[in-house]
């Protein structure tokens, strides 16, 4: 199941990147040997639990945090080889938005958007023109005179997106951009980001701790755990066949509920768009002449496809189990055998 995005144009390559923070009280390693390629035009997700190092990683991509090991190659250029002045100019090609929006509170919406252009030395008239264009794109053309304190969270993030796009960047870095927003606003901001990605062809990197954000708009994802990359690949692939423990935990945030069942002989089966139309479980029980116990079931919308997961407990008898597994194999339904352990 290969992704449709073309993989020729590598926009960002992260090579053996590591970051250790040193202070008087000792050193903390936030990132260890990170290797990633991000391709032009894709929406790439980086997910992990809080403290996993994902916020440090996104700050290493634009060198807000200088990596202590390795390098970032952006558009064919090694960022670690740049002088501070060259780096500042390079950053204009990398827009960034934040969880807390970080707008200038004493400037109007319009003046916030012209800010990066002022810094870049763009003539005032041209900057205003561009800012109004961007207000149109983010759907806030009527609020140009409003101050951030007069805007809602979603509107603030829209202004922040417009501001990040002002200098026509090649990549938009989103650091927990929807974490401070309610679900409805989150959906509208994600839709806007997707729209910008499609219409303007801007590559997007999304940092989040919410799997739903990844499922909603990302094509590929890197899962980061304990300062390292645990897994990287296409979102639908990882969703169907999560390899790492952390991936399973993130896909099933309701995980602890599973521990209510303490069982062996479990299988996790995944329905893709096709098999969702078939009464798979009913057929399985009829075919195999054996009951199964449904421990957990869930359907998710991954990039527009309905993907379902179900955790089944199979009967004790080995022959019945084999029949069930054979049935699943024949029907081409992806599954993994699992043992559910009691966790603390």
């Amino acid at each position, binding site marked *: 199941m290969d992704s449709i995005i073309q993989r020729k144009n590598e926009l960002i390559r992260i090579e053996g990147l590591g970051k250790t923070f040193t202070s008087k009280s000792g050193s903390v390693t936030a990132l260890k040997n990170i290797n990633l390629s991000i391709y032009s035009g894709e929406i790439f997700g980086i997910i992990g639990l809080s403290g996993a190092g994902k916020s440090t990683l996104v700050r290493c991509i*634009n060198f807000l945090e200088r990596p202590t090991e390795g390098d970032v190659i952006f558009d064919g250029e090694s960022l670690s080889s740049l002088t501070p002045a060259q780096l500042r100019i390079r950053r204009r090609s990398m827009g960034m938005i934040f969880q807390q929006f970080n707008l200038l509170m004493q400037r109007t919406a319009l003046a916030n958007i012209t800010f990066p252009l002022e810094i870049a030395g763009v003539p005032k008239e041209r900057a205003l023109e561009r800012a109004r264009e961007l207000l149109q794109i983010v759907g806030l053309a009527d609020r140009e005179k409003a101050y951030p304190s007069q805007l809602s969270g979603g509107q603030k993030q829209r202004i922040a997106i417009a501001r990040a796009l002002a200098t026509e960047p090649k990549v938009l870095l989103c650091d927990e951009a929807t974490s401070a927003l309610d679900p409805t606003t989150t959906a509208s901001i994600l839709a806007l980001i997707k729209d910008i990605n499609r219409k303007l062809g801007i590559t997007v990197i999304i940092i989040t701790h919410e799997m739903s954000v990844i499922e909603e708009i990302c094509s590929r994802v890197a899962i980061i755990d304990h300062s390292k990359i645990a897994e990287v690949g296409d979102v639908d692939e990882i969703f169907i066949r999560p390899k790492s423990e952390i991936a399973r935990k993130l896909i099933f945030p309701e995980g602890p509920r599973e521990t209510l069942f303490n069982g062996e002989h479990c299988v996790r089966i995944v329905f893709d768009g096709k098999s969702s139309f078939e009464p798979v479980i009913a057929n399985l029980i009829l075919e195999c002449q054996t009951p199964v116990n449904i421990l957990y079931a869930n359907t998710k919308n991954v990039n527009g496809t309905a993907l379902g997961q179900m955790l089944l407990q199979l009967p004790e008898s080995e022959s019945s189990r084999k029949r069930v597994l054979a049935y699943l194999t024949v029907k081409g339904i992806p599954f993994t055998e699992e043992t559910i352990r009691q966790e603390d």
Partner: protein
Amino acid sequence: MDLSIFTPELLKAIGWGIIETLYMTLFSTLLAYVIGLPVGILLVTTAKDGVTPLPWFNAILGFIVNLMRSIPFIILLILVLPFTRLVVGTTIGSTATVVPLVISAAPFIARMVESSLREVDAGVIEAAHSMGATPIQIVWKVMLPEATPSLIIGSAIAVTTILGYTAMSGFVGGGGLGTIAVNYGYYRYKTDVMLVTVLLLVLIVQVFQELGMRISLAGDKRAR
């Protein structure tokens, strides 16, 4: 109160006292800001987490500021007399008082500016970095504008504090309402005159404080 002591001459002297006090206060504040504002900015920018970290410089600057702030104004007034004579040519009168006032107020203002600038959200500064802003642009276009309401409140506090110092300088012939209070109230036991000058000082403090608050509030776009 016996109003007959308020002769036209005395009233004229009080009028001049007000003008001199305002002159000393505002001129000193202005000059103290010329020194204190850049020092306050440097205290923030050269700090370990600042935009241009320079810890050793920050430590030295902080030490000098603390040293100067720990000298009581009345002592400083006398200590700098030779320097005052060098700069102004005399040690008496309101212009001469400006010298110790500035020396005393500048480090105080530097600390006030420092604390105002520290209130600026680190996230906003980080956002400016992400757009490729230079340290000077961050100070000029982010820190100072974002801290303006707080800086204005700080300047109102500075003005009223300096006003208090001008009154103190009355003891060494500094001029202004302080000198009138000392000369009439202290040396000639005319308590009524002292009372009037004190009331006038209270009034001036109230006006400056209120003015500062209003300007700050009007310019603050954070809360509506």
